[in-house]
């Protein structure tokens, strides 16, 4: 087998559970794994966090890591094999490329703040629907309570006014007498 060095474009799908612990931690693990297998990492950057077109396992969303590397085919296969067994990446793709684009080279091995990576909680649709229903029920309850309070207050006022009118009428009768 030849050990000719080629350029590859690499895409890693990172588990959001791992990214929540720290994006840089997950990225460093991928980089370390590649370098351990003699893969020369030229570019490694965040491509984005997005929803998956179809669920992979229980995952609905993933963080995409984009990289450009130089390595032999054998090294790439070894790195891939290890990454599928352990680590934050659950799907990996290496694609042969002629050269690394200049605009990609400008990124280099990008280090960004963990807080800059926004990973939303994976809430399944039915849970969201349940929450909406619960909120609506709570809102309707509060509305009912306020209506009841208003009715009670109106009833009390009416009673007070009737008492007052009775008292006035009694007073008038006394005057006549």
């Amino acid at each position, binding site marked *: 087998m030849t050990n000719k060095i080629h350029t590859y474009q690499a*895409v890693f799908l990172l588990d959001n559970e791992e990214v929540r612990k720290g994006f840089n931690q997950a990225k460093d693990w991928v980089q370390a794994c590649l370098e351990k297998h003699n893969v020369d990492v030229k570019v490694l950057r965040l491509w984005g966090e997005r929803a998956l*077109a*179809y669920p992979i396992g229980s995952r609905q969303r993933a963080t995409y890591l984009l990289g450009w590397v130089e390595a032999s085919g054998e090294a790439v296969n070894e790195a891939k094999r290890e990454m599928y067994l352990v680590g934050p990446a659950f*799907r990996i*793709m290496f*694609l042969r490329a002629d050269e690394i684009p200049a605009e990609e080279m400008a990124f280099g091995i990008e280090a960004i703040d963990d807080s800059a990576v926004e990973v939303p909680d994976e809430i399944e649709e039915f849970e969201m629907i349940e929450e909406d229903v619960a909120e609506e029920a709570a809102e309707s309850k509060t509305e009912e309570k306020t209506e009841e309070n208003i009715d009670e207050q109106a009833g009390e006022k009416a009673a007070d006014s009737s008492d007052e009118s009775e008292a006035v009428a009694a007073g008038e009768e006394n005057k006549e007498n």
Partner: protein
Amino acid sequence: MSSKKDRMFDFKNVEELQTFITPLGKIMPAKRTGLSGREQRRLKTAVKMARQLALLSYGVQ
């Protein structure tokens, strides 16, 4: 032979690829896309890679 430059497709450019996908998630035939044989093969490869990375779905259930 057409004088136009051959079109290239990037698997990361999902919006562009979606224009060549039917509502059921299938790749449109060359008759409908109007692409040359070589371009259609490039499109096929790009779509398949995008599907593998869950950028595009395999089809509608």
